[in-house]
């Protein structure tokens, strides 16, 4: 048999990368995926940083701002922040990261790395490379299935701020899930402040399953809270609770306003915005209610 015919028999049923699909009866006999950590160190080199800021400021942020109507509040609280912080945000949409990176003060934005799901963003090399370059992303193991060593402590030690989404995944219905302990644990063990960030309207603007925001420039809100430092001897669990309370207040600020939300928090009336205990459609119905600006428009805007 000639080489050509031999190659044709060999490649039949294989894709352009030479991969064959696994026969169904062999599916249970596949070897477990070897934990492979995509190297992201190159994405923090000076050249990659310059390229990233160019991409973010020249493409990503203008594009996001052109497709949505972001309102950013509380950003001034970060102006005096020095050293690395851990930004802790709720997560409902792929819009969340560009909105936060585009609205952060420049001195923090250019030194922020984003924790991205290792199993989602780092499963294919091209996606991993693109995510690492554009967002300065590093892989975060969500399900402890691959036993990757976390890069987060190293990055903090080198002065990088981190953007983490402690719910672990994008919301299914726009409401929040409990905050996992990982981020709080990181702050407590590394002694760095956490900055709670709440995003409202991003689920309605671009929920799971969409890859482009809804038409009509939906309004989205990015609300930064004041940095929260772990106290001496404070456990990660207690610190996580404190973070949860701050997130709840920032969430409620949208409906109540700043002062009312403070009073409600003091009165113990706030809880995590996990949504009504009702049918799935009602939860989704509520969370997709357009975010309208309460009261008259402000005299001046805190835009990007």
């Amino acid at each position, binding site marked *: *048999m000639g*080489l050509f015919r*031999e*190659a044709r*028999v*060999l*490649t*039949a*049923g*294989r894709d352009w*990368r*030479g991969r*064959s*699909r*696994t*026969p*169904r*009866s*062999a599916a*249970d*006999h596949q*070897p477990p995926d070897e934990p492979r950590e995509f190297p992201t160190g190159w994405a923090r080199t000076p050249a990659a940083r310059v390229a990233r800021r160019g991409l973010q400021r020249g493409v990503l942020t203008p594009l996001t701002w052109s497709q949505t109507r972001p309102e950013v509040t509380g950003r001034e609280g970060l102006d005096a922040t020095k050293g690395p912080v851990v930004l802790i945000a709720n997560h409902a949409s792929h819009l969340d990261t560009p909105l936060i990176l585009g609205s952060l003060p420049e001195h923090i934005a250019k030194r922020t790395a984003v924790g991205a799901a290792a199993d989602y963003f780092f499963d294919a090399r091209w996606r991993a490379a693109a995510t690492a370059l554009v967002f300065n992303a590093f892989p975060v193991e969500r399900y402890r299935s691959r036993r990757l060593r976390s890069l987060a402590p190293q990055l903090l030690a080198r002065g990088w701020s981190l953007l983490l989404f402690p719910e672990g995944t994008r919301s299914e219905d726009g409401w929040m899930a409990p905050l996992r302990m990982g981020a709080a644990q990181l702050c407590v063990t590394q002694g760095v402040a956490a900055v709670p960030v709440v995003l409202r309207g991003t689920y309605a603007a671009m929920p799971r399953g969409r890859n482009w925001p809804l038409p009509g420039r939906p309004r989205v809100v990015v609300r930064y809270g004041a940095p929260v430092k772990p106290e001496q001897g404070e456990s990660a669990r207690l610190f996580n609770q404190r973070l949860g309370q701050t997130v709840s207040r920032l969430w409620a600020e949208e409906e109540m306003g700043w002062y009312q939300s403070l009073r409600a928090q003091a009165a113990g009336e706030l809880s995590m915005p996990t949504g009504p205990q009702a049918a799935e459609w009602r939860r989704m119905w509520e969370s997709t209610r357009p975010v309208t600006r309460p009261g008259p428009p402000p005299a001046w805007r805190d835009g990007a």
Partner: protein
Amino acid sequence: MSRPGFVLEVDERTPALLMHQGEGFRLEKLPLGSRVVYPPESLPGLRDVDARIREALLNPLGSEPLPDLLHAGMRLTIVFDDLSIPLPQMRTPDVRQRIIEQVLEMAAAAGVDDVELIAGNALHRRMTPAELKRTVGERVFRSFFPHHLRNHDAEDRANLVEVGHTKHGEVVEINKRAATSDLIVYVNVTLTAMSGGPKSVSVGLASYRSLKHHHNVHTLRHSRSFNDPPNSAMHHSYHRMAGVLDEHVKIFQIETSLNNDTFPTQLGFLNKREWEWTLKDQAAYLAVKRANDLTPAKQRRQIWHRTAAPYGITSVTAGDPGAVHEVTLQHVLRQQLTEVNGPSDIGIWGLPYICPYNVNSIMNPILMMSLGLGYFFNLYRGQPLVRPGGVAIYYHPVSNEFHPVHHPSYIDFYEEVLAETTDPVAIEAKYEEQFATDPWYTHLYRNSYAYHGVHPLYMWYWGAHALEHLGQVIVVGGDRRTCERMGFRAATTLNDALEMAREKVGGSPTITYQHTPPLVMADVR
């Protein structure tokens, strides 16, 4: 963690599968629904083989430690498996060398002067000095060859001794030096469940008078299979003979088992499941296949026979032969056994370039028959992979080619005996005595490098169980005239072979391909 073996059911996702075909290989697309029996993945080898050997010698099973058995003034005979095991040959240093060196260290420390090393080659051809050196290592070879390192001679009447008879009247006759030694240390490599244990001394050092009790058509037809000792009449006979030997000689058995690392890294694709082939594996397949096809036949054969396997050693166990072999068998089965749900109408086997009797030699048609219908067909436990009356399809060129030095009696067997009959019983009755006692064959066996005169008949008996069980044997790519001589049918392609098989098994046969080597033994439930 090595994955266990499993049975693949060919579906539309299954790529073309690898088939060995003599000194080559090919990819073949099997019909949808065919089953493919894959061996367990290669088990990890021992990290420190030498330490394990020492530990085994010092802590044997059912025996005193080896140093306690050695003393000055004793007669010590070290016997080792010949070059028929393992297949392909293992990379040097051979595990037999490693073991023998440690045994000799202990013997030297105990002041043993009278030491002989004997290759347990029974009726196989003598090993050449180079082959002996490769097996036992330079240091042992230099110290003992030629006077105290030699091949067993099953026709040297002066150096054979009748040890006794079994209760079935079987003569136990073995090498005199071994039988009159204070201690036999047997160094074994157990490649399949058939080897080792009681077989080692009772076969490796035996004469034709002794071997004919179990190497005959009746016994082999009632060995179902050779690789399932409890159900093998041949092994029952070995056990009876071993019982007689136990009463007369002290045997300290050292057994080893191997993993399935049968091919070196550059041929790594031969060890892997096809849908897991990387681009590198595929490129290697194309490059090796093309180079192999273009290489002249003689050089191609030399290259294949020079290719040594990077086997890992999975166990080293020493002590009483019975106790040791039980442990070894567990290791062998752990590496080779795959459970299969029932037999099928058609069995497919790709026959490689090597069998136990053509190391550094030619795989002649008789050896092809012995490998296919003997060794591979018998790689089962429970029941054969093919139902009674089913069809076996083999891949092999079956060239009419013989090694004149190694296989002289094979040539006559092929030309004279098979031209008359292929019936093992008729062959045994009419020709065995003639071939076994022919003085020219005996001369060549003793003084040249020829297999014993009776060996081709034994090879034919080896397939007697399969010949009785199967309805038809078809060889894809086989030489038509050679196949016809042996009672087989030749087919050009698998589709042709399946078309021929319809006569015996109907239009919608079930098909099972035993994907070996690396070796897999089917546990057919």
